[in-house]
Structures are given as structure tokens and as C-alpha cells.
């Protein structure tokens, strides 16, 4: 108790502070509760001490009191008091303890410690599946969604009971906010206050006495639009929360509500419209979706053009490319590297080309559920028609969508998992690292790492390249720091002091790295931009793991001596 009081009043960890815009400080309540507990302890000790002293004076059997305990010390202090005083002390301590105890029981639901009781239930009912989103309405199948009057969360009452329970169960410890990248770069979002503001709202609008006045819109009242769009759904908050409080589902539900009301920033409307009409956020022509594969320069691998899957191709593996890798000039290199790796591993694979549409991963996480469903249904149909047994992708967002948001599609793997397995099975070897002086750090993409727990495969692959020096950033694996978010987040114009990518690039520099290796095209965009903005070109560079693998794979006859570009593939 003394430790807790000292921490609250003397050390005051920064995360306990409540910025004025988020409400009032909780320290007075914390101190009040600590005071009540102190009274309980002193009264209880006094009760035991006076009992023991009284029995001693009356030559009755005396209770043993632990040496140096509070009752033991009090006993020493009151040992000489007359019997009547001891009686009074005894009864007084008893009454004080009773009154305080029952007062505390009644007060608890209104104080900051209620989480101790409610968290028993909220932890028990916590969501266990990573990478998934809650449906628009539990128990309502997709086909019946048209009958649902309102989508998402618009008022407090729209939250599920579990999410309301979360609001009460948060211990207000601030770990989520400390780890939130949006909070770190000064976006107007702190996950902890999503909870605290909702909890304060519940207390204000559902008072013990008086009428409940409810059904007020949350956006524009306790939450701002920018606050809700600021989240990259990176999952750092949920990973850190000791009480398993959920944030992504709540934020996506709030976005579903905003989308339903037409309340969407102009910067997001264009890409959403383009996704609807063209199946990609850039509004590029469908027929050009597979063109990246044609651009594989002659003489490099694979020599055969990438197959287009039409159900008759005989290929058993689908490489799902997704929008950014298909259309972005820089990211197309990831597509080509992935194709060359698959070719070299002897996989019989192909792509969907013009019939592939965006996986819809961010469409869904930005709350546009109906558009997501249209994209998902289209892709599911063409994937099934392709007649493949497995799917491979190099985009963690597509990977997460195909794995968790789609149903009835063949099993999906990220290319890193495929390569790691082949390395473990001894099927591939790497040439010694091209540039021995470089120091590599692996950046965990949120949707490969935290949401899907793929931490070791990429590291194993890197470590199997002979001579490669790898360092870890302080924030790595489950504590990885989001680079800025993918998909539609690239179109959103957040209010922020600096870019998330900038912080990430600095973290890599601090770790002593000069190459950041990632396994996601969106990380590549964000980190590449950040390197430029930070003016660190030449000092820091970023590459995709597929590019690194492609450059170092031992292909037949290429070992060490020959130039890779001219190699023939051994697979």
C-alpha cells in the first residue's frame, strides 16, 4: 500500500497522467481508495493488538502476532493501557473496520478499482482468435445483413456487452497507450482513453439516481473522427494489455458506424470508390493487374512467363499478389522476386491476373463491410475456379485476409514461411551475403508478426544466409512498432507530429543497423518514405525479404562464382 501510494504521489509514472482533453485525473480517487484500505489495515491490526494485549493482562491464552507486523508493533505501543481503554479500542477498531469495509464494498463500483471484480469476467470472455474481426452483428449471417437497420457503433448502446464490460475492466494502467504508435507520433488517439472516455460516459449518462439520458452519437461528442481513423489496427495495444481489453474490434465498429452515416474523409472516398469500380484503390485498369509479371527482364528468372490461372493450367499453387504489388512500380519488384523464388523452389504456380481483386483486408478494417464482402466473394469464386491446392502471398495483409476473413479457400502461407520450411528441409541454400559490411535488422510487419505470430521464420531465413550480420531492434517481435499502416491508411491524411516510419527508422539506427528488412510492401512504402523524409538516404536502406532471398538463392551452377542474373534456375 505504501509502495502504491509512493508511486502515485511521488514517482507519478508519466502514463498515469490524464491530458485535459481526455478528462480529469484519477489520482484523487486512487488516493481515496488507498486511504480506505489503509483504514481497514490499521483498524484490523488495532483489533488484533488490543485483543492480544487484553488477554495478556487478564492472563488468558494470547494470540501469536507475527514479529514486526503492524499488530505486533501496536501491541507493544498499547501494552500499558488500562483494561477499559483496551476494551474501547477493541470495540472501536471493530466498528471502524466494519463501517469502512461495507462502505468500500458499496463504493467500489464507482471507483477506479472496480476492474478487479469485472476483469474476472472480461478476461474469461476475452476473444482468443488473433487477426480476426468481429462480425457486424453477432448471430446475423452475411446474407441477412441487408436487414440490419444500422451498422456499427454510433451510440454507446451499440457496443456489445463484452465491450462495455471491457470499459469497466480496464485498470487504467496506460500500457496500451505507451505502446500505441498513433499515440507516439501525436495522432489524436490513445487507446486507453477510448476506454476511459466511454466509462466516464456510462457513469454520467446512467446515474444511480435520476433518469438515464442516452442514445447520443459518440462521434463529435466523446470521440473525434480523426481519433477513430488514426488507428492502424497494428494490435500493439491489445498485445500489451494485461486484462485483454479489445481495441481493434471497437475501432472497426465505430468506423462501420461512420461509413454507414456517410461520414468518411474525402481522402478515403476516392480509393473506396475505385475499389468498388476497379477492384483496386488506385483506379487502375483491371487488365493491367498482371502486367508486372511481363516486366520480368529477359534473361532473369523465371525465363517462362508467370502462368495465368484459368483452371486448366495444371498449377497447384496460387500466388495471390494483391493491389499494391500489382500496380506500384517499386513494389512490383517484390512480385517479381516472389515469382522467381517460387520458380526456383520448383513450385507449379500461377497468378490470377486481371481477375484478381483487392483482398479487401483494409476495406474491412476501415469499416466498409459490404464492399469487403463483394471483393471477398469475387476473389473466392475465382480462386475456386483456379483449382489450386494452396495459396502463397508476399503481402501480410492479403495473408491475414485470406487466412481469417475468407472462408472456403485453400490454405494460405506467406512466402517467408515457404522459404523457411525449404531451408529447414535442406532444399535451398544461400550464397554468402553480398555486402558483408552491412548490418541488417528485421522489422516485424504487424499482420505477419503480432496478428499471426510468424516471428521465427523470417529470422531463420536471414540467419541462414552465410555471413549476414543481424541485430534486433529493441521493439521487435510482439512489441514491434507499426511503420504507419497499410492499404487505405496510405491514403488517409492523419494529423500527426511526425511519421511512424520516422520513429521506426531511428529505432533501426539505434540498434546499429543500416538495412531494414521487412516482409510487407506497405512497410516498404512507409519506411522508404521515412528514410527520405529523415534525410537518411545512403545511411539506411530498406528491402523486402523476398528481394534478399532472391538475390542470394543458390541456383544451379551459380554457387559463388557466376553472376546471379545470368543463372539458370535449379528448381
Amino acid at each position, binding site marked *: 500500500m505504501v509502495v502504491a501510494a509512493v508511486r502515485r504521489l511521488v514517482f507519478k509514472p508519466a502514463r498515469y497522467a490524464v491530458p485535459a482533453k481526455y478528462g480529469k485525473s484519477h489520482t484523487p480517487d486512487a488516493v481515496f481508495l488507498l486511504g480506505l484500505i489503509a483504514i481497514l489495515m490499521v483498524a484490523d491490526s488495532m483489533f488484533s493488538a488490543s485483543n492480544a494485549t487484553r488477554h495478556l493482562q487478564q492472563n488468558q491464552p494470547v494470540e501469536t502476532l507475527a514479529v514486526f507486523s503492524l499488530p505486533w508493533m501496536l501491541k507493544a505501543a498499547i501494552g500499558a493501557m488500562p483494561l477499559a481503554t483496551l476494551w474501547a479500542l477493541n470495540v472501536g477498531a471493530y466498528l471502524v473496520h466494519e463501517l469502512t469495509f461495507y462502505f468500500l464494498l458499496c463504493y467500489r463500483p464507482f471507483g477506479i478499482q472496480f476492474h478487479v471484480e469485472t476483469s474476472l469476467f472480461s478476461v474469461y470472455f476475452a476473444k482468443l482468435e488473433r487477426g480476426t474481426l468481429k462480425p457486424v452483428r453477432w448471430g446475423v449471417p452475411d446474407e441477412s445483413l*441487408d436487414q440490419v437497420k444500422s*451498422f456499427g457503433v454510433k451510440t454507446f448502446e451499440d457496443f456489445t456487452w463484452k465491450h462495455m464490460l471491457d470499459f469497466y475492466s480496464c485498470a487504467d494502467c496506460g500500457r496500451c497507450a505507451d505502446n500505441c504508435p498513433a499515440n507516439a507520433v501525436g495522432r489524436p488517439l490513445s487507446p486507453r482513453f477510448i476506454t476511459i472516455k466511454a466509462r466516464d460516459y456510462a457513469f454520467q449518462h446512467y446515474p444511480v439516481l435520476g433518469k438515464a439520458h442516452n442514445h447520443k452519437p459518440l462521434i463529435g461528442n466523446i470521440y473525434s473522427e480523426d481519433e477513430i481513423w488514426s488507428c492502424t489496427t497494428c494490435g500493439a495495444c491489445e498485445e500489451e494489455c494485461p486484462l485483454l481489453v479489445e481495441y481493434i474490434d471497437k475501432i472497426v465498429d465505430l468506423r462501420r458506424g461512420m*461509413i*454507414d*452515416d*456517410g*461520414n*468518411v474523409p*474525402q481522402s*478515403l*472516398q*476516392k480509393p*473506396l*470508390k*475505385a475499389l*468498388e*469500380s*476497379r477492384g483496386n484503390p488506385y*483506379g*487502375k*485498369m483491371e*487488365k493491367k493487374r498482371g502486367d508486372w509479371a511481363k516486366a520480368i527482364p529477359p534473361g532473369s528468372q523465371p525465363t517462362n512467363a508467370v502462368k495465368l490461372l484459368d483452371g486448366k493450367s495444371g498449377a497447384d499453387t496460387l500466388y495471390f499478389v494483391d493491389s499494391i504489388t500489382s500496380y506500384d512500380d517499386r513494389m512490383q519488384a517484390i512480385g517479381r522476386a516472389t515469382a522467381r523464388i517460387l520458380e526456383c523452389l520448383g513450385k507449379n504456380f500461377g497468378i490470377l491476373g486481371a481477375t484478381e481483386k483487392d483482398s479487401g483486408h483494409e476495406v474491412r478494417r476501415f469499416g*466498409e*463491410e*459490404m*464492399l469487403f464482402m*463483394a471483393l471477398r466473394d469475387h476473389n473466392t469464386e475465382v480462386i475456386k475456379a483456379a483449382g489450386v491446392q494452396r495459396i502463397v502471398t508476399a503481402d501480410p495483409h492479403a495473408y491475414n485476409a485470406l487466412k481469417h476473413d475468407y472462408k472456403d479457400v485453400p490454405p494460405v502461407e506467406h512466402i517467408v514461411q515457404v522459404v523457411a520450411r525449404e531451408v529447414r528441409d535442406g532444399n535451398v541454400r544461400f550464397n554468402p551475403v553480398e555486402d558483408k559490411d552491412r548490418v541488417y535488422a528485421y522489422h516485424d510487419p504487424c499482420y505477419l508478426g503480432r496478428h499471426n505470430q510468424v516471428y521465427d521464420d523470417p529470422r531463420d531465413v536471414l540467419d541462414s544466409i552465410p555471413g549476414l550480420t543481424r541485430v534486433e531492434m529493441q521493439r521487435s517481435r510482439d512489441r514491434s512498432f507499426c511503420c504507419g499502416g497499410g492499404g487505405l491508411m496510405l491514403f488517409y491524411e492523419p494529423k500527426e507530429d511526425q511519421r511512424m516510419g520516422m520513429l521506426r527508422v531511428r529505432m533501426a539506427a539505434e540498434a546499429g543497423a543500416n538495412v531494414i528488412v521487412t516482409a510487407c510492401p506497405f512497410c516498404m512504402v512507409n519506411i522508404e518514405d521515412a528514410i*527520405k523524409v529523415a534525410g537518411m538516404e545512403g545511411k539506411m536502406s530498406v528491402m523486402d525479404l523476398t528481394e534478399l532471398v532472391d538475390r542470394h538463392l543458390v541456383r544451379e551452377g551459380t554457387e559463388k562464382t557466376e553472376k546471379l542474373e545470368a543463372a539458370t534456375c535449379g528448381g
Partner: protein
Amino acid sequence: MEILVCARRVPDTSENEISLNAAGNDIERDELVYSVNEADNYAVEEALQIRDRVGGNVTVATIGGEDDEEILRRELAMGANQAVLISDDAFSGSDGKGVATILKDFVRKGRYDLILTGVQADDGAAQVGGMLAAMLDYPFASLVNSIALEDGKLKVSREIEGGNREINEIDLPCVLSIQTGINEPRYVGMRGIRQVASAPIPTLGASDLGVDQGAVGEAAARVKRVDYFVPALSKGAEMLDGSREENADKVLELVAAKGGLK
């Protein structure tokens, strides 16, 4: 207030690669995606906001064919009260004056206090709004970027070259052409469109409106397109190929030299 918005469906410039057709007299229209003309969408949003403030109805009308129903549904999903498709074979090939004539007859069929158009269509000539007002003998203000309603009169502002603004008072009924950026149009998702999928959209033809067929259509058009081409890249574009800092300095210098910075 009864508000009419005249909207059009155009190829979406941000989502198409526009190229000439083989004959060289139009763009290649296969594989194009269309959407509501951007300025018209702002006009609809403005109409909805006025309606939500003072009450009334918003009607959206377009001249075209069956395909154009798509944008009417979108505007219904946005919140318009009704939509009308004005369609007749006799209308095809109309020039700006022909289009204004059709709209004039449509307006006379109803009672509208305020008629909004977009400032111009992406592929248009910004002429219909003004002509429509003249034919109806209504006052007209163009390039409007804000509207306030004060005791039966409108105060509209428009931007003047150089960034200044001018406020005009205008009597109702009137015609206004709306500038993009006047508001932030709301988002229409798939769900919204599905909800209005079965809303009725009446189609009106030349005889319904009493349009003088001699005044519209290709035969009556006195402005005809004779050529369509992509202009050759001319000189005068200056490529900056220094370092980022040098380029930034150079751009600043150029903008300042042209009077863009004060």
C-alpha cells in the same frame, strides 16, 4: 424548399486511361468506368444540407439513357428525395442549348425554388446552367462556393481569380452553378446503394415534357464537334533534376517569381 439538382454521368477521370478511338472523333469508351460528375456531386450535397436546415425536397435529374440510372441511385442513396431520368431518342446529339431546352421544359413541369448544377461537367463546357437560367428568366450565379439563406433571399459567394471572394444577393427562384470544394460530400457505400435498389425512378420523354422536338437533338445542334485529339507535349515544361533540397529551393523561387508567394 424545393431544390432541383441537374447531374450528369461522366467517365471518371481518376479511374480511366483516356485514349482516342480509332475514328479519332471521340474517346475509346470500352472499359471505361463512370461516376457522377464531381461538381454535380457537390451540388447534391449542398442541396441536401440546405434541405436538412430548412426542410423541403431534393430532386436529382439527369438526361441520358438506362445506364445513367446508376448515378441517380447513388444520389438517392446519398439522401435525395427523388430522382428522375429524362430520356428520349430525340434528345441524343443535343448541343448545350438543346440540353438547356430540355431542362427548361422539365423545370416548368414542376415547382422548384432553387436549381443547382455543377460548375461544369468533366467533359462539358460549363454552358447549360447559364442558358437554363436565361430560358427560364431566372437569376443566375456561377462558380458558387457558399450559400446562405436569409429571409427568402440567398447570399452566395464565389471565388474571384487570385483568391478573393465576392458575396452576391440573389432572389429565389434562381439557378446556381456549384464549385467543387463548397462542402464535403458524404460517402455512399455499397450498402446505401443496395437499400435504394428498388426505389422507383420515373423516366420522362419528350412528349411527357412537351419538348419542341425541332429545338433539340442532333439536327438542332448548332455547335458540332469536328475534332478530338490529345495535344502534343509542348515545350515550356521545365524538369528539375537536382537534389531534393535544390529542387525545393528552385520550386520556391519559381513560384515566387510568378507571384504565387507574397
